[in-house]
């Protein structure tokens, strides 16, 4: 398949705290374009999906991500991801 085709990878994306409020959703299930390699690519793609995503990822450097419930960096590969979460820096404790 070519880069512009859809992959078979379907992931659940979760949003927490102000990421949830800005995107207007707590979760969604999306089919990832095969062209997306890592978290940074996914963020770039999500920002094209509407102004609410653009607002949520406006300062992408402060957004944190987890793949399959483990913290990851923006260069973490999407291969094998079933659940991806985006959230602000944590403030528990």
């Amino acid at each position: 398949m070519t880069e512009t085709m859809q992959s078979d990878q379907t992931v659940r994306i979760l949003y927490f705290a102000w990421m949830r409020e800005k995107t207007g959703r707590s979760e969604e299930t999306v089919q990832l374009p095969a062209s997306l390699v890592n978290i940074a690519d996914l963020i770039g793609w999500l920002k094209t999906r509407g102004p609410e995503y653009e607002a949520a990822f406006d300062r992408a450097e402060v957004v944190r991500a987890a793949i399959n419930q483990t913290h990851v960096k923006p260069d973490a590969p999407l291969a094998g991801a079933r659940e991806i979460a985006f959230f602000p820096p944590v403030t528990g404790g």
Partner: protein
Amino acid sequence: MAVRIQEQDFEIGAEVRELVHGRTDVGAIVTFTGIVRGGDATTAITDMTLEHYPGMTQAELERIEAEASDRWPLQASLIIHRFGKLLPGDNIVLVVTASRHRHAAFEAASFLMDYLKTRAPFWKNETRSDGSGGWVDARESDEQSLARWHTNRD
């Protein structure tokens, strides 16, 4: 070694008793309790809601606890973190560490709190009397607190 994520309150004395009941090998127990502060006079905090990432929270706290057990000779440890709506003066988090010697217990408890503050997926949303509430910003100092544990190890 145990982790609990719960809405209800906890009682420090009961948790410590439960953790070391009948043991005679523990010489030192350190507890840390985090409490909701009421803010200052001009911008009082009315209440606070703690949101979390249920699927990840338990696993992440267990990872942090395992890391502490790997670094210090702990005989028992416990992390309890609450979520939901809390009022000023309410308990938020309890960390308990038990060891033969005091420095291991102190350091492990301090380590657990530093990691929990920067890694456990919880977010605080405050309501304030003057309407200035909202999502609490992460503190840069919490990130800096982590650094000291890296230099100890690397």
